[in-house]
C-alpha cells in the first residue's frame, strides 16, 4: 500500500525529530512525523506528574514486574515506578551485548525529550578542531562559527536558563536568567575560584527549564518531577515546545505506532523515495513517499534503519559505502568523581526542589595544561542536606530515630565528571539478522568499550574532584570510580559520522548521507566526536541547521 506524498518525512519524534518537524513545517514543507511508539499527549498524558509521593504505591521502588519487563532500564537509576511507562519494554526490543552496552530507550511520541536531564551546553571551538589537531577519527567539516547562529536559534526557542561566564571553553548563549546555586555551593564556588585563580569555575547548570515565562510556556515551579512530564510545560520537550509549533503550521501529520523498517531507495537516481512503515497495531506495512527523509530515530536506531535499508547496491545498508556505518560509537564516560561533608550552614536550608545542579566546565588540556591523555571532562553535582533516608548510627529505633529523621541532616556535596570518549572504528554496532524482536525485525548487536585514553582520564576525574573539594574546605572527601559501561550516560552517538569525504564518513557537512543526499541524519548518529558536554543542544542546533539547508535545496530543486 502506498500512501500520499510528503515533502519531508521525519523518522523519530524525540529532541532531534521534533526540531526537524518544526523547522521543516515552518518552512512550508508538508511533513510526516513518524514515531514507533504510542502518543503521549502534552499534560493529559503525564499520568503520574501530579501525584503525591504517597500516591505512588511502591514509593518509586522498582517492582519485580518492571524488572522483568525492563531489565536494561532497571540497571540504572533512570527508571522508577512512576516513570517506568516512559522507558522501553526491553523484553520486546532486545539487543545483543558482545560487550556491555546500556541502551536506555524511550519509545513514544517525544522520545527521551520527556525524560532527558535537560543540561544544555554549547560545544566550544576547540571541540570541533580536536580530531584534526590530534589526527583522531575524522575532521569535522564544520566549526564553531558554523554552529553559533544555530545555537542562538535553538536556545532562543527552547529556553535555556544559565549564567553568562565569558569562558572560551563553554561559550555563552542566548540564556534566560540563571537558576541559583544554593548557599553551600556558592561558598564552595567562591573558594574554588580563589584557590585556582579562576582557572576553574563552579557555575549553576545551564538547563532547559524556564526561569521566566517564555514563548507562551510557564516558568519552572521547582517540583523536580521533570521526568514524569511537566504539566506546566516548563522544560523543553517535543510535547511542550517543538510539536505544538509544528502543529500550528498546519503542515504536520503525526503518525505514532509506526516503525520505519527501511528507507526506500531508487537505485537509478541514487535517491530515497520514502520509507516503509510497519504499523504496530495493525501489523500492516505501508510505504510513504517524500522528497527528503530526516532520520532522527536516535543514534542507534537511525543506524538500524540505515543498515536495514540494505540493497544490492549497498549490501551493508544505505550509507555504508565508507565502511563507517555503525562504527565509532561514542558516549560520555562518567561515574567518577568525589563527595564529602560540609560543616557549618546548620542554620541554612533550601526552599523548593531545584531540578538542576552545579557545573564545573572543562579545565584539563586547555590553556597550556597538558595531561597524559587528550580531551577533558566537566563536572555535574549538587550540595544538599541529608534527608530522612540517612543512617543515624547513634540511635537505634523508636522515637529517637523518628525525631532525628524528621529534621534534615548535615550538608554534603558530590559531583561526577562527564568525560569525552575518543572515536574508534572498532567500537561498533551491527545488525544481527539471526535474532528478531517482537515485530520480527532483526536486532542490533553492540561491540564497544572505552580505551586507554578514557581510563587514564578517569584517574583525574576522581582525583581532581577530590582536590577541589578539599581546597574548598569540604571534610571527609572521598574520590570514587564506580565504573562505567558504554551507553550508560545515555549520550550514545557517532554511528553515521559527519566528515569531509564519502570515503571516510557517512554524512556530509549538511548531514546528507553521501550515498543518498536526500536522506539527512541529524541526531546523535552524525557526531564525529563527543566533546565532554551534554549533547542534546548540539543535536537541536545541528537539526535546525540541516533543516534550513534542506528547505533551501528543496526550493531550488537541488535535492
Amino acid at each position, binding site marked *: 500500500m502506498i500512501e500520499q506524498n510528503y515533502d519531508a518525512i521525519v523518522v523519530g519524534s524525540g529532541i532531534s525529530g521534533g526540531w526537524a518537524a518544526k523547522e521543516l513545517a515552518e518552512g512550508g514543507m508538508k511533513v510526516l512525523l513518524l514515531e514507533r511508539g504510542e502518543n503521549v499527549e502534552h499534560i493529559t498524558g503525564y499520568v503520574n506528574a501530579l501525584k*503525591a*509521593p*504517597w500516591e505512588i504505591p511502591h*514509593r*518509586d*521502588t*522498582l517492582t*519485580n514486574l518492571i524488572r522483568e519487563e525492563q531489565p536494561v532500564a*532497571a*540497571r540504572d*537509576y533512570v527508571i*522508577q515506578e512512576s516513570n517506568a511507562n516512559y522507558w522501553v519494554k526491553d523484553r520486546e526490543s532486545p539487543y545483543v551485548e558482545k560487550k556491555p552496552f546500556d541502551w536506555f530507550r524511550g519509545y513514544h511520541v517525544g522520545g527521551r525529550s520527556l525524560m*532527558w*536531564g535537560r*543540561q544544555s551546553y554549547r560545544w566550544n571551538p576547540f571541540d570541533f578542531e580536536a580530531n584534526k589537531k590530534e589526527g583522531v577519527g575524522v575532521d569535522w567539516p564544520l566549526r564553531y562559527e558554523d554552529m553559533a547562529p544555530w545555537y542562538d536559534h535553538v536556545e532562543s526557542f527552547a529556553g535555556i536558563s544559565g549564567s553568562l561566564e565569558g569562558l572560551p571553553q563553554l561559550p555563552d548563549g542566548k540564556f534566560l536568567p540563571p*537558576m*541559583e*546555586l*544554593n*548557599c553551600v555551593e556558592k561558598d564552595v564556588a567562591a573558594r574554588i575560584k580563589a584557590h585556582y585563580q579562576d582557572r576553574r569555575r563552579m557555575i549553576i*547548570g545551564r538547563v532547559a527549564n524556564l526561569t521566566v515565562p517564555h514563548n507562551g510556556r510557564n516558568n519552572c515551579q*521547582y517540583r523536580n518531577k521533570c521526568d514524569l512530564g511537566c504539566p506546566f510545560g516548563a522544560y523543553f520537550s517535543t510535547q511542550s515546545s517543538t510539536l505544538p509549533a509544528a502543529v500550528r503550521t498546519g503542515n504536520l501529520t503525526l503518525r505514532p505506532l509506526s516503525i520505519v523498517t527501511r528507507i526506500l531507495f531508487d537505485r537509478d537516481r541514487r535517491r530515497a523515495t520514502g520509507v516503509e512503515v510497519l504499523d504496530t497495531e495493525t501489523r500492516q506495512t505501508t510505504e510513504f513517499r517524500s522528497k527528503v527523509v530526516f532520520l532522527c530515530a536516535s543514534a542507534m536506531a537511525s543506524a538500524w534503519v540505515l543498515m536495514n535499508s540494505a540493497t544490492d547496491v549497498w549490501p551493508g545498508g544505505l550509507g555504508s559505502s565508507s565502511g563507517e556505518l555503525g562504527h565509532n560509537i561514542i558516549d560520555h564516560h*562518567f561515574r567518577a*568523581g*568525589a*563527595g*564529602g561533608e560540609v560543616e557549618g550552614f*546548620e542554620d*541554612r*536550608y*533550601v526552599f*523548593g*526542589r531545584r*531540578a538542576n*545542579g552545579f557545573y564545573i566546565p572543562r579545565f584539563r588540556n586547555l590553556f597550556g595544561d597538558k595531561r597524559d591523555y587528550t580531551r577533558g571532562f566537566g563536572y*555535574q*553535582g*549538587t550540595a*544538599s542536606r541529608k*534527608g*530522612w*533516608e*540517612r*543512617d543515624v548510627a547513634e540511635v*537505634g*529505633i*523508636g*522515637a529517637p530515630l*523518628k525525631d532525628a*529523621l*524528621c*529534621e*534534615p541532616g548535615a550538608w554534603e556535596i*558530590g*559531583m*561526577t565528571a562527564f568525560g569525552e570518549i575518543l572515536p574508534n572504528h572498532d567500537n561498533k554496532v551491527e545488525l544481527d539478522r539471526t535474532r528478531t524482536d517482537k515485530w520480527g525485525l532483526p536486532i542490533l548487536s553492540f561491540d564497544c568499550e572505552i580505551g586507554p585514553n578514557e581510563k587514564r582520564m578517569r584517574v583525574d576525574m576522581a582525583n581532581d574532584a577530590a582536590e577541589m573539594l578539599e581546597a574548598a574546605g569540604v571534610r571527609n572527601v*572521598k574520590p570514587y570510580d*564506580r565504573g562505567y559501561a558504554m551507553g550508560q*550516560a545515555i549520550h550514545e552517538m557517532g554511528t553515521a559520522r559527519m566528515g569531509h569525504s564519502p570515503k571516510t564518513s557517512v554524512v556530509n557537512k549538511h548531514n546528507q548521507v553521501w550515498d543518498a543526499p536526500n536522506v539527512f541524519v541529524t541526531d546523535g548518529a552524525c557526531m564525529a566526536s563527543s566533546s565532554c558536554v*551534554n549533547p542534546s543542544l548540539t543535536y537541536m542546533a545541528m537539526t535546525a541547521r540541516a533543516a534550513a539547508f534542506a528547505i533551501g535545496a528543496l526550493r531550488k530543486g537541488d535535492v
Partner: protein
Amino acid sequence: MSASGTGRAHGGRADPAAISRREAVRRIALLLGGAMVGSQAYLSGQPVPGKASPGFTQGELALMDEIGETIIPATDIPGAKAAGIGAFMAMMVTDCYDDRHHAAFREGLSGIEAAARERCRKPFLECSREERTALANALDAEQRADQGKRGKDATPHYFRMMKELSVLGFFSSEIGCTRALRYIEVPGSFNGNYPYRKGDRAWF
C-alpha cells in the same frame, strides 16, 4: 541524557535533576548501608523474580503493623501503624523482593516471635511497648553488627529489612510527608539560602 545518581553517600549524581524524589529509594538503601534490599540479585545480573507470594495472614499483618510502630512509634505525630505500615510491608515484600529475600523476610517474622519468647517469655503482640522497644533495639544492634559479616550475596538480617521498610513506608506516606516532614506539591520558586532553625521539619 545525563547522570549517575547511584548512591549518594559520597556524592555525584550525574543528573542534578535526580535529587530527592528519585533518589529517595536509592538512599534508603544507604540507610543501612548497601543496596536496596531485594535488589542485589538484579544488580548482579541474575534476576530471580519473586513468584512465590502467598498472601500474608491477618495475624502477620497485625504483627508487621506493631513491628513498624515499634520502629517508628506515634509521638506527637502519628506513627507507622497509622500510616498502614503492615499492609505496606506486605505489598513491598510481595511485589518488589525476590524469592530469597521474600523468604528471609517471612522467616524474620518467626524470628522476631522467637526473639520475643526468648527475651520476654511471650508473643511479640503481648509484649508491652517498653519490652518491644528494648527487643527491637537489641535486634537493631544485632543487624548493625551483622552487616559486615554477611557475604556479598547473602540476604541481610531480617530486622534490617523491617527497619528499611518501616522508614520508607512511614516517611513517604501522607502522614510522613505532611506531618513528620514538610511537602509542597508546587513550591513555585527556589531559595538556596533559606533560614533553618533547629526543630524545623525536613522537606520530603
